[in-house]
């Protein structure tokens, strides 16, 4: 089982590598620092360079990302930091480039032994690992951490870890969660056994994300919030104030056990300060007062960064897509022709411009992003046909609207109220008006919008949103976003925002999930076909695949980009 999964990731990696070479080149040409370009292509880990050790790495962000608890926080902002703080049994390889999608043993000494038809995973723990509070890591900590996922109502408790035996009871009454028969430790043999109710080809990925981090068994059984939990990795949090600063210092008990799973870090201290405007973040990095900014630089600074600071800007494509959801259960988009019309009409190159230009985003026409397992180039909605999107077909769109008889109907567009989202929303509103709809735009605070558009009670017809992968598997886009099970009418948590529920597609997805257990390549082919068949129904309008720009200070070196968790913070050096 585990072997096949690793092969799966590897197979995906080769496909992806071929597809993203063009996209990656922009990053490489941009960075004059030789370590950057070489590190993102070399596989494997480079030896530690002690001459660069030390100093304080200064990071800035507009806002903190909430709770510091690795089993609760579900933001890329802190998942990025957890790479060099917390460890699970398995982890994603801490390297740049495509290799970063590979799962490797971390607190486990080796990849698990998989038996019982893919339902039983047996891990042997590494010896001599100590938490930052000085206590040794034991099998009890591992068992308690899995229970804790449910006790703290981790965001993914019911979606990633519900396949563990005993999870159903834990979801119902978290306080008394034992995962009896699900997760058991054997202290003498130093092993942990996990039993699943059904085989799950994606389980190793789920063990490698921060929610499955191992924390001490006496950790509070509620969200630890701003009180940092002891870590196993090279850094630990010394203090955290979400309005001011997060301070990471070296974990005095850390000894490097596996360079690819958890390499030791270069800076002695990492200061992450919050609260500045994004404009002043850019200025701070330009002046060397900060080493890296979390937020995407604002539109009016991009040109300056791209011309005056070429060696300090690193651009990398993300496995994510921005898309517009069309509510298939209410007028006018309960009409397939009307939905297809929008897909034909949207000028992706205009959206790319609004996002920051061709080097920061590329037009999208499929659900699975390029370079992602299962992605196949195909585009039903481009002018003149073709495998990729080239131009919008406004004439065809207008004809389809006419044919559908939906012209003149009111359409509300709901977007987040930040600059980029709002400007794309304004473009969509203007476009729908052109198509003959009475389009209105409703920009909402980012905090409301995402739950607002999910709840069917709010009768949202068209919403702008995005999806960033949790782990590199096609089901993380298709099954999560388009299955009937992901549609919960009347609930704030209904990620199938279009309300697309098709029995045939659901059955195909179940088959693909099964196939993945034995033959990942065949499964990915199936996922590619599912992507195309969903797109024919047009429940969403894929707009762009974004790229991320990391703007770093002059002194920052050894920039490496993990496709899974982004810039490897602990691996950068400032000396």
């Amino acid at each position, binding site marked *: 089982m585990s072997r096949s999964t690793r092969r799966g990731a590897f197979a995906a990696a080769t496909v992806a590598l071929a597809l993203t070479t063009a996209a990656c080149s*922009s990053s490489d*040409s*941009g960075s004059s620092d030789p370590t950057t370009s070489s590190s993102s292509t070399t596989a494997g880990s480079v030896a530690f360079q002690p001459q660069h050790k030390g100093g304080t790495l200064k990071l800035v962000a507009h806002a903190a990302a909430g709770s510091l608890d690795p089993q609760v926080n579900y933001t890329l902002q802190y998942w990025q930091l957890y790479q060099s703080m917390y460890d699970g049994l398995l982890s994603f390889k801490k390297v740049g480039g495509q290799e970063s999608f590979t799962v490797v043993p971390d607190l486990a000494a080796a990849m698990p032994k998989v038996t019982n038809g893919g339902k039983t995973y047996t891990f042997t723990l590494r010896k001599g690992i100590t938490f930052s509070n000085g206590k040794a890591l034991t099998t009890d900590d591992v068992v308690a951490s899995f229970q804790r996922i449910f006790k703290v109502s981790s965001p993914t408790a019911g979606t990633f870890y519900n396949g563990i035996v005993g999870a159903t009871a834990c979801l119902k009454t978290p306080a008394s969660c034992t995962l009896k028969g699900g997760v058991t430790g054997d202290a003498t043999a130093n092993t942990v056994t996990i039993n699943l109710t059904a085989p799950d080809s994606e389980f190793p990925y789920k063990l490698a994300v921060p929610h499955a981090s191992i924390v001490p068994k006496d950790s509070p059984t509620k969200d630890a919030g701003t009180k940092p939990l002891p870590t196993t990795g090279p850094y630990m949090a010394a203090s955290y104030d979400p309005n001011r600063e997060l301070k990471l210092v070296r974990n005095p008990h850390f000894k490097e056990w596996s360079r690819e799973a958890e390499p030791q870090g270069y800076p002695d201290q990492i200061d992450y300060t919050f609260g500045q405007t994004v*404009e002043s973040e850019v200025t701070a990095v330009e002046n060397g007062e900060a080493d890296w900014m979390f937020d995407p630089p*604002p*539109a*009016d*600074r*991009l*040109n*300056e*960064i*791209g*011309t*005056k600071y*070429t060696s300090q*800007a690193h*651009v990398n494509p993300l496995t994510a897509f921005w898309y517009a959801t069309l509510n298939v259960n209410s007028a006018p988009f309960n009409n397939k022709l009307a939905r297809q019309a929008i897909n034909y009409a949207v*000028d992706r*190159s*205009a959206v790319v*411009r*609004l996002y*920051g*230009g*061709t*080097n*920061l985003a590329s037009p999208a026409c499929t659900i699975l992003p390029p370079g992602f397992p299962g992605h196949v180039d195909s585009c039903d909605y481009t002018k003149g046909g073709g495998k990729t999107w080239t131009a919008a077909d406004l004439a065809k769109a207008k004809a389809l609207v006419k044919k559908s008889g939906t012209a003149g109907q009111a359409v509300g567009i709901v977007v987040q*109220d930040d*600059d980029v989202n*709002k*400007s794309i*929303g*304004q*473009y969509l*509103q*203007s*476009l729908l*008006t*052109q198509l003959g709809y009475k389009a*209105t*735009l*409703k*920009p*909402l*605070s980012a905090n*409301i919008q995402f739950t*607002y558009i999910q709840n069917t009670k709010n009768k949202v017809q068209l919403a702008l949103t995005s999806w960033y992968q949790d782990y590199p598997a096609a089901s993380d886009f298709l099954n999560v976003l388009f299955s009937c099970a992901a549609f919960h009418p009347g609930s704030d948590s209904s990620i199938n925002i279009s309300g697309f529920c098709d029995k045939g597609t659901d059955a195909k997805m179940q088959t693909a999930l099964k196939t993945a257990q034995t033959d990942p390549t065949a499964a990915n082919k199936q996922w590619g076909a599912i992507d195309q068949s969903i797109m024919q129904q047009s429940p969403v309008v894929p707009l762009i695949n974004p790229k991320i*720009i990391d703007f770093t200070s002059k002194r920052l070196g050894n920039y490496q980009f993990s496709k899974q968790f982004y810039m490897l913070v602990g691996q950068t050096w400032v000396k």
Partner: protein
Amino acid sequence: MGQVSTAAPELATVEARRPPGPWRTAGADLLHNRSALAAAVVLFLVVLATLCAPLYAHHVAHTDPFQSHVSGSTVADGKTVPVLTPSSTGLGLGVTPIGPTWDPAHYFLGADNQGRDVMARLLYGGRTSLFIGFTAALLTCALGTVVGVVAGYAGGVVDAVISRVLDVIWAFPVYLLAICLSVVLLTDGLHLGPLTVEAGSLWLPVAIIAAIYVPYIARPLRGQVLVLRNKEYIQAAIGSGAPTVRILRREVLPNVLPTAIVFVPLMTALAMLTESALSFLSVGVQPPDASWGTIIEDGLGLLYTRPAVTIAPGLLIALTTAALNVLGDGVRDALDPGARLRGGV
């Protein structure tokens, strides 16, 4: 003047026999106040310009300022150039809209991030800002007068209840109350029985701004009415059994109305500033409508490359509110020198 007298000759003759009333003296005072006159001229020009917005957009600039032109092109210095130019040097990051061309026919003040003509949007935005400022001010003053007079005249429980409500609004920090209300109303619109206001409607900011400033008007007026009510001639009128409505209309209103009117221009200025601040926090006017505040907010994303988009609407707000304040001071000096709006926001 001649035309007026033919329309209402009786009125004119009646007026002529009386000594000049307080309104006429005030009018004469105002006409002699040079700064107030200058302010009125400035205001008139601003209003005139915004009224010409469609004329400018359709016949001079030939553009629809509410339509995105992300992939459009225009003419500058006789050459065809894209409205939004993607950067082509270095890493090629970012897209820059065309800057001011100083050519009224082609993007006089440049374009915003949607490729829309900033000049045309300024004119249309001015209509929205002035509309919101003026209607909100009228509404506040009307509402404030009614509330203040009722509370001051009725006294007792009515006064106590109204005063406490006013205290609550007063103690609620202005922007916090406005933002709180906006967040709710912008999400769901306003539903008050048969009255429904859509979430994107301009009447929402009007209603919100009018509501939060009511105590600014009602409190001083209530105080005035309280003093009036104890005056002998009103006590006498009450004692003689005159109907309340008549006392209010004949004796109370004429006394408080000058104060209420004094507040209108000052309140308009305050309402315009508040509207722009709410729009800046993106809880004011909603797209596709534009106001000077929303143009500033759109422009902040371009501050470092195209500062004109931010600076121009800000200057217009400053000019208009300054004119309103000067005019308001003039009206105050003429009508009711003691009247004072709570200073500062």
